[in-house]
């Protein structure tokens, strides 16, 4: 017994007895030495870190079967069993580099991303609100990027020879109808949503993912904010109106809610800045929204956003067909939008993202001809004038449900698949000058299933392959759309990407219901080649694209004289080259970007008599955007210059003898030039522990007062045309934003360091 105790004790008393050395070299799979790798003997203190030549060496007193573990950031961990006897052990171990978001190539063909988190993005969220010509509108900022047109006579994004309706906008995956305020004749309306609602923006000018559909040209994918940093209240006061809101973050920082309300009335602005049209009911908007966001246990999110707005306006302008009459257009709009989205991690690499959205829109439009004293002109017999007296009520309901499942397959490889269903019900009621009512309903159930895979062959070569299957009950047709993109990263970290895809789209509501016969989806095929170099605060990228349009809708007048989709015999193409250069480094504290687009496009669609360049397509478009923050003045100066060469315009007349449209007149507008300027003044900047923060914003569009002509309207009866120009030469905006409870000073500092 005593002997046993002695043996036991001595084994503890002499722990240094028999130290064995372990040494070796850590390399990558190309035999390059890896410094900084941690080598350890499991469950002991013993181990070492590899030196600059990848060598390591340490001694241990452990014996027998042990495990050596090697870990290094960015590389896969390796465990190696060893048997420690009485002899030194030599181990040479090679580690495999992990493919991570940091070192891997990213597929960027066709798309611009604005994000603060991800690497390799070209824009930040703040860029959207500090671009002078954007006027705080998301799509305004996108119009300074290559691929977009400087269209000012109507809202929306005209991308690479596509119409505005070929660009669709998604919030948290759900399609948003009526993203813009309802159209006014000859005027571009703004987007309804505040750019500060979104943390990420992806603008894809083509070749976008199979997760999205129904857009022949472009997809704007917006991702809403997560939890706010702090509880705060804010107020805004400007020449356009007032607003206020509150965001409340729960104590445990797991959930938040918020509400806001804005009232806009352009009476003051229009009193100072003379408008071309006579706005006898000045544009008035009431807008409220509410949200809640809940962070779930496993890092998921449940988000709700709800929006409602009511607005009205009425304006008069001299009727194009007469010298004495006025055309009066009035609109009242009620719009609601609700979006509930749930993202969750299931573990084992499974994620899901599901959402439902519901929206309604109601437009009440009254159009009439008035005499000089604004009395309504009454007509009893059909004539060109008589048809200008009409009422139109549009009511629409939209509902969407969507689910996307994602499975990560090691590294960045992933498979995504899912389905969505979109229901739309659009009713219109048209009242003719005679009082006769025409009611029409267009209903569609659009069902889609999609799948996509991200596949990294090495960290330098990646592919994204996908497909989308859709069925529309409106046409009772199916389509299947393949999508593919490839990216390759060069040694100098620049990269080339290629994207291909087929895209389908339903006819626009305004050309429906179709008379008879079988309509099919309109179709576009995209081919995009991109080269991009991002380094050291400088970005260069160039894209070559070719887009083939097939099965475009052709229209003919129906019995009421309204253009309706009759067949899919249209076609077209768009091709061009685009350049983008952004530099935050060369000039101190100055950030600028230049974009240029060359576009060659022709199409035969709607009532076009043949293949022609559409009136929204300029051949050359360029933008120059510059931003500078002057610290001592606490002021940011932003300017942008947008330029586009002339766009064509046509007078299309229906020729009864040929039973088709002919070009009766055509021309090209003057070049478009617009210099915009904006200024942000932050008086509280630098005052520490300020609980309120104030920002003054002044912006001026078309500073130089250059002539801007967007196109021409032709008289239907008389033989004359009239230039479509902005309602005023210049617009000046002055406003201040006040926020409480949060010190935004620090935000501003760091945005300008």
């Amino acid at each position, binding site marked *: 017994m005593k002997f046993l105790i002695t043996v036991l004790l001595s084994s503890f008393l002499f722990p240094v007895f028999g130290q064995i050395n372990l040494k070796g070299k850590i390399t990558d799979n190309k035999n390059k030495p890896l410094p900084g790798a941690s080598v350890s003997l499991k469950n002991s203190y013993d181990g070492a870190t590899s030196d600059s030549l990848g060598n390591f060496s340490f001694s241990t007193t452990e014996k027998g079967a042990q495990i050596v573990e090697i870990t290094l950031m960015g590389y896969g961990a390796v465990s190696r069993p060893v048997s420690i006897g009485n002899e030194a052990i030599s181990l040479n171990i090679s580690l495999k580099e992990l493919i991570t978001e940091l070192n891997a190539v990213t597929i960027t063909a066709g798309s611009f991303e604005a994000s603060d988190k991800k690497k390799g993005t070209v824009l930040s969220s703040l860029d959207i609100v500090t671009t002078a010509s954007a006027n705080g509108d998301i799509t305004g900022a996108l119009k300074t990027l290559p691929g977009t047109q400087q269209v000012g006579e109507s809202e929306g994004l005209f991308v690479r020879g596509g119409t505005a309706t070929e660009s669709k906008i998604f919030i948290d995956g759900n399609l948003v109808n009526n993203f813009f305020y309802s159209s006014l004749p000859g005027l571009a309306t703004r987007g309804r949503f505040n750019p500060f609602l979104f943390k990420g923006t992806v603008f894809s000018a083509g070749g976008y993912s199979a997760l999205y559909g129904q857009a022949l040209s472009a997809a704007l994918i917006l991702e809403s904010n997560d939890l706010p940093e702090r509880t705060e209240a804010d107020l805004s006061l400007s020449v356009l109106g007032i607003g206020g809101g509150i965001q409340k973050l729960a104590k445990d920082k797991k959930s938040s809610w918020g509400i806001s309300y804005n009232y806009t009335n352009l009476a003051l602005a229009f009193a100072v800045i003379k408008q071309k049209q006579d706005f006898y009911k000045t544009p008035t908007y009431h807008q409220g929204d509410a949200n809640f966001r809940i962070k779930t246990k496993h890092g998921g999110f449940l988000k709700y956003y709800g929006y409602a707005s009511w607005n009205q306006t009425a304006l008069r302008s001299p009727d194009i067909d007469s010298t004495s009459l006025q055309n009066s257009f009035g609109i009242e709009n009620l719009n609601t939008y609700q979006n509930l989205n749930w993202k969750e991690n299931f573990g084992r690499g499974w994620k899901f993202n599901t959402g439902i959205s519901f929206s309604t829109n109601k437009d009440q439009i009254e159009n009439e001809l008035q005499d000089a004293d604004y009395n309504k002109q009454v007509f009893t017999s059909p004539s060109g004038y008589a048809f200008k007296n009409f009422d139109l009520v549009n009511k629409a309901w939209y509902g969407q449900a969507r689910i996307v499942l994602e499975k990560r397959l090691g590294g960045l490889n992933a498979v995504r698949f899912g389905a969505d269903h979109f229901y739309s019900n659009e009713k219109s009621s048209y009242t003719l000058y005679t009082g006769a009512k025409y009611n029409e309903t267009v209903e569609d159930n659009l069902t889609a299933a999609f799948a996509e895979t991200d596949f990294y062959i090495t960290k330098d070569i990646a592919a994204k392959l996908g497909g989308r299957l859709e069925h529309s009950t409106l046409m009772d047709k199916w389509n299947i759309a393949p999508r593919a993109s490839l990216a390759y990263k060069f040694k100098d970290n620049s990269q080339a990407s290629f994207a291909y895809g087929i895209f389908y789209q339903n006819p626009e509501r305004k050309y429906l219901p179709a008379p008879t016969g079988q309509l099919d989806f309109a179709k576009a095929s995209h081919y995009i080649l991109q080269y991009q170099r991002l380094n050291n605060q400088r970005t260069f990228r160039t894209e070559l694209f070719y887009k083939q349009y097939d099965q475009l809708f052709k229209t003919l007048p129906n019995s009421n004289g309204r253009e309706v989709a009759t067949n899919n015999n249209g076609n077209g193409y768009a091709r061009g080259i685009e350049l983008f250069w952004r530099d935050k480094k060369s000039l101190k504290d100055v950030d600028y970007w230049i974009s240029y687009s060359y576009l060659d496009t022709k199409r035969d669609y709607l009532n076009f008599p043949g293949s022609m360049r559409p009136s929204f397509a300029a051949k050359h478009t360029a933008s120059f955007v510059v931003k500078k923050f002057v610290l001592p003045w606490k002021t940011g100066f932003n300017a942008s210059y947008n330029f586009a060469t002339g766009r064509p315009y046509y007078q299309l007349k229906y020729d009864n003898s040929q039973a088709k449209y002919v070009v009766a007149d055509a021309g090209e507008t003057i070049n478009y030039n617009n210099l915009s300027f904006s200024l942000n003044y932050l008086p509280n900047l630098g005052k520490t522990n300020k609980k309120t923060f104030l920002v003054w914003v002044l912006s001026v569009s078309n500073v130089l007062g250059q002539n801007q002509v967007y196109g021409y309207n032709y008289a239907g009866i008389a033989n004359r045309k009239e230039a479509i120009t902005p309602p005023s030469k210049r617009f000046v905006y002055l406003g201040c934003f006040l926020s409480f409870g949060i010190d935004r000073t620090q935000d501003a500092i760091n*945005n300008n360091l």
Partner: protein
Amino acid sequence: MKKLLFVSILMLSAFFTMAQSAKYNAAMTGNLAAIDSSFKNPANLLSLANNFERIATAEKSQWLPYYYAAYLQVMYGMMLEDKSGCDAIAEKATALISKADSLSPKNSEISAIKSMIATCHMLVNPMQRYMEYGMEASSLLEQAKTEDPNNPRPYFLIGQTLRYTPENFGGGCQSASEQLQIAMTKFKAFQPASALHPNWGMQRAQMLLDECKK
């Protein structure tokens, strides 16, 4: 005989614990002594961080080795020339400090390291990340202050940040010195719970103060 066996086992286990803790103390002391000199060469910081991590994973129940492993990782990240690597290092440090946190909750020293990790994330792109990580860092320092009002390190870290913030934005030497003075008073009064407990920063605080006096 039974009694003898019992006593022996008791002695043995006591001895075992002592030996174990002597080994722990020795390893910790040795590595702690190496910290100061390792700041000259970031590679040494990483190697020391790995040493502490090995002690931490072998011991499992001690928060201090996890704490030092996280501290050295985050210091390594902050000394990188190319700050784009900070994210990965900060994630590694977060994994380590979370373990320390679960072993010793509501610890002012641990909150201070967490704030340094947030700062490390911010350094990758200060312009865009301030709102998230800058705020997080300063609220963690406030938390560290309340968890232990005598801890000088939160005041030192605030002073250090102010020292490198432009005067226009409320930074600069004057406001930094105010905080660093508070830190110095607290450093002088500070008694670490043991020789192994955190007790760093005084030298650097004095250095920053001296820089400002010039």
